[in-house]
């Protein structure tokens, strides 16, 4: 093996690949199984965006907290939520991360610091300010991250939160995952400024924009702003310019996209293929090792789906529990 030119050691590189592939495998399988009618409700997939979740969250501790978006499965996996429990949750089964009461749009696991995907666009930003405030109060260097889509970046909650985090110098980081589309509406139509760096500057925050399909660019930029937040340097805004491989929701015919758009993106901007190409090219990890991870992920997803399908529906008594602490 050659010298390692990357900011992660071999084990770190393998872990990054494994996590990104787990997200991709998870989402690709949901895409298939949703089409088969196995999954109730609405599902929004993260495939194509994996480098953002993983490149950022490899810097996080379990006690750090994140508030996610409508498209939250990738954030869950990268933050350490168990894929089997997630699959059960998305299938609405007992043993799910949220006992089958949240579903895809509200999937969460506070035990590992995942404060929830959110059915309300932009709603996670104030919550991440609160998690940052709690961390600041504890003084233990924990941080919080608010993930926001380019669409939700226009919500008042998000804009107010940028100001609040700056005013209170919170250890809260805002990550705009710009996949080019707010549902079906293009980012360029719905966001008046050309650059999120300009928007950050308008709120007195440092801003940085990276190619969100470049895992290493994400990893290095995130490392810097996360270190700064941990050490009292306050909030930052980071844009990951990225691509979405599926529709806004499953079942979206995506007629608003150009004819070959998705095929071209898959060919040229697949963050996992790009990562693998670079690492293999540098001869730090061999193709066979990546192939072995792929096989392991496929088996994991097979097993997660099988366990979800085998899991019972929640007992009807669960309807009336956990409304309050007392019931």
């Amino acid at each position, binding site marked *: 093996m050659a010298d390692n030119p990357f900011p992660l050691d071999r084990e770190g590189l393998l872990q990054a690949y494994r996590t990104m592939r787990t997200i991709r495998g998870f989402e690709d399988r949901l895409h298939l199984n949703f089409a088969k009618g196995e999954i109730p409700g609405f599902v929004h997939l993260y495939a194509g965006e994996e480098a953002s979740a993983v490149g950022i969250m490899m810097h996080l501790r379990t006690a750090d907290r994140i508030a996610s978006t409508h498209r939250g499965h990738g954030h869950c996996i990268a933050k350490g939520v168990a894929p089997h429990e997630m699959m059960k949750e998305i299938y609405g089964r007992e043993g799910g991360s*949220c006992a089958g009461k949240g579903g895809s749009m509200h999937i*969460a696991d506070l035990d590992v610091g995942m404060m929830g995907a959110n059915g309300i666009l932009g709603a996670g930003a104030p919550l991440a300010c609160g998690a940052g405030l709690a961390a600041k109060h504890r003084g233990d260097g924990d941080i919080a991250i608010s993930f926001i889509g380019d669409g939700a970046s226009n919500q008042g909650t998000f804009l107010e939160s940028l100001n609040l985090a700056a005013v209170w110098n919170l250890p809260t980081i805002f990550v705009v995952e710009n996949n080019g589309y707010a549902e079906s509406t293009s980012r360029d139509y719905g966001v008046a400024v050309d650059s999120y760096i300009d928007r950050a500057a308008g709120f007195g925050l440092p801003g940085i924009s990276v190619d969100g399909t470049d895992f290493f660019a994400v990893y290095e930029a995130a490392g810097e702003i996360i270190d700064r937040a941990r050490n009292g340097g306050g909030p930052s805004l980071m844009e990951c310019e990225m691509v979405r491989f599926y529709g806004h929701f499953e079942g979206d015919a995506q007629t608003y996209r150009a004819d070959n758009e998705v095929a071209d993106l898959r060919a040229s901007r697949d963050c996992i293929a790009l990562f693998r190409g670079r690492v293999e090219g540098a001869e730090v990890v061999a193709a066979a090792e990546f192939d072995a991870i792929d096989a392991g992920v496929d088996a994991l997803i097979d097993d997660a789906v099988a366990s979800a399908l085998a899991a019972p529906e929640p007992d009807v008594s669960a309807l009336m529990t956990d409304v309050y602490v007392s019931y």
Partner: protein
Amino acid sequence: MTTVVGTRLITYREAINEALDQEMTRDPSVIVMGEDIVGGAGAPGEDDAWGGVLGVTKGLYGKHGDRLMDTPLSESAYIGAAIGAAASGMRPVAELMFIDFLGVCLDQIFNQAAKFRYMFGGKAETPVVIRAMVGAGLRAAAQHSQMLTPIVTHIPGLKVVCPSNAYDTKGLLIASIRDNDPVIFCEHKALYEEQADVPEASYVVPLGEANVVREGSDCSIVTYGMMVGRSLEAAALLEQEGISCEIVDLRTLSPLDLETVTESVENTGRLVCVDEANPRCSIAADVSAQVSRDAFGSLRAGIAMVTAPHTPVPFSPSLEDAYIPSVDAIAGAVRAVTS
């Protein structure tokens, strides 16, 4: 009123201040935030300039310092931050200056705080208290005077409190801060100057327990907030006419102590629900429906409701006075159901 040892006469406002002070002293995870709750943050004049727009938190900054935080005028952000901090181990008390501002931050309250525990499968505790001024009477008109208790009471996952006197205020606020569910604590702005005997020591008035503030045999009046005092006045008038009223102060609107209400109605056979809120889907309408369902056989007359009209709160003093349910209106309703 006899003064009990260890108590003194203090106002509703002072009772809130004292509850916050004692809980902040007892528990370092209690933090307090809101617009101008300290007052003058970053300004060249004195610290603790206001202590809230009506002085409720005055003096706490000197004792507890940075655990009281002035916020930007950003209700969505800071109410949401209080909720996020609550779900992250703190016990925040956030002041939403007027409950009329609920519309600006309702999502954080009803879609986030209220639902975390349920939609996260029981993993979340969100011990946040949102204090808000409610009610009419200060000539503050349509956007600073509403009694929006029904809106928050409607939402599963929230608890809703609205005290009628200084004693209950202190005990209910302490209970709310210690409670592990989100609580909307509604303070009637026209009651801030009202005094009662209040113990200096810390104590709890449990959430979800109504209080029979007057016993009687002919008619039950079920009410809360400022309407408790008016109902007591009406009852005193009616006593002279030979009509004996029992008054139930709900104190907590969610959870609702229906047991105390139905027990009272079973004794008196008549019910007048008095609510400063607008009539449709109000607390009065809710209590009326539930009593009809649970204690229909005990009723000797139809249930009456005395509420504000189905209008916004007007500004002109003569109009506002006509808007707020009056002692005469309450007495009239009782006469009607007992005649």
